[in-house]
């Protein structure tokens, strides 16, 4: 199986420059949709008194929520939503708070700008079978181009790579120290006001 995958990767690698259907990024209701990648590692002591690690990703959260297959966890309108087939399936499924300490805007040529923000972020999830509540220093960047033909393009990146906190697995009744990261990035075109 591995050999097949490796060979397929090579074959596919030859098509690395094959064009992807051009898309204007992802937006819903004229708001940026940035897929959220959660990557956490928790530790617990198992029945044999051994410390064991367990991972939590966005897919685990989607599974726990019972979201339809192919759903995405996204950062959208300052909250975390589940989207499926470009429609919002559920919103506010994960708490996300950003306490800004510093911010700055740099203006470039032809109306372009870059906004950066740093501070302390909190990511919390209280699901059907597990919870976590983690904090870490975050970095947020919003870049936009000047207006052309009544529209402008923007990109967003919101991430923290130093999350720590705790978690709980309700099924096993385990409390878990948790470390990890989250990242949300997206792009889109928006009408100029």
């Amino acid at each position: 199986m591995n050999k097949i995958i490796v060979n397929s990767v090579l074959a596919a690698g030859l098509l690395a420059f094959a064009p992807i259907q051009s898309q204007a990024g992802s937006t819903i209701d004229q708001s940026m949709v940035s897929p959220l990648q959660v990557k956490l590692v928790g530790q617990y002591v198992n029945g044999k008194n051994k410390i064991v690690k367990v991972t939590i990703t966005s897919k685990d959260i989607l599974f726990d929520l019972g979201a339809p297959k192919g759903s995405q966890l996204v950062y959208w309108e300052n909250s975390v939503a589940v989207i499926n087939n470009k429609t919002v399936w559920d919103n506010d499924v994960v708490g996300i708070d950003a306490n800004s300490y510093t911010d700055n805007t740099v203006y470039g040529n032809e109306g372009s700008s870059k906004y950066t923000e740093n501070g302390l972020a909190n990511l919390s999830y209280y699901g059907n079978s597990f919870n976590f509540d983690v904090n870490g220093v975050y970095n947020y960047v919003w870049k936009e181009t000047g207006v052309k033909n009544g529209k402008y393009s923007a990109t967003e990146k919101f991430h923290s790579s130093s999350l720590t906190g705790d978690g709980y697995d309700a099924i096993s009744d385990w409390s878990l120290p948790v470390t990890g990261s989250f990242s949300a990035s997206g792009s889109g075109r928006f009408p100029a006001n």
Partner: protein
Amino acid sequence: MRLNTTIGLIMAGLVGLFGILFLKHLSAPISQTPLLSVSASPSTASRQETKPLTIKLTDAHQAAVAPEPTPPLIVTAAPPSVVDAAALAEEHRASIQARIAHLNELESKDDPASLQAILSELTNPEIEIRAAAIESTIQFQSRDAIPVLNDLAARTSDPNEKQALLDAAEFLKLPTMTEIRAQKSKAGNLQ
């Protein structure tokens, strides 16, 4: 006298034969000389007379991780002299964003074709796309990706990228919360 004549004729015949063979060798085309070693690569695939083509991971991966300048992913038809450099850069940027958005879509799926599509981007010439592909591989949550990640790490010279690939492989080796849940449910049902 008769013996001398016979020996002379035989000698003359031999000299003539060697002469013909020597001239024939000189006039033989050079291309008939066999090629002893030709490095196999996709570009030599059509040369059937050479060594059979064996695709080596090293070649593909090293080419991918080599710090060479990369052409834009979308090439416009307009002549370079009239194309605005800023517009091209913006188009290139948009193309990278589109690929990353595509990776995000693929990571939410479960099928082998989506995994292969993600893994193929681990060797993309754009470092930003390769980094996104590593994250998408993690989010896809398939252990089939581990040997690919380890193999690429072994052939990557960039220490940061090497570490990211190894970290991703280590992450995927761990059980997921969903798997733990499934094990617990199974154990509960058996009791």
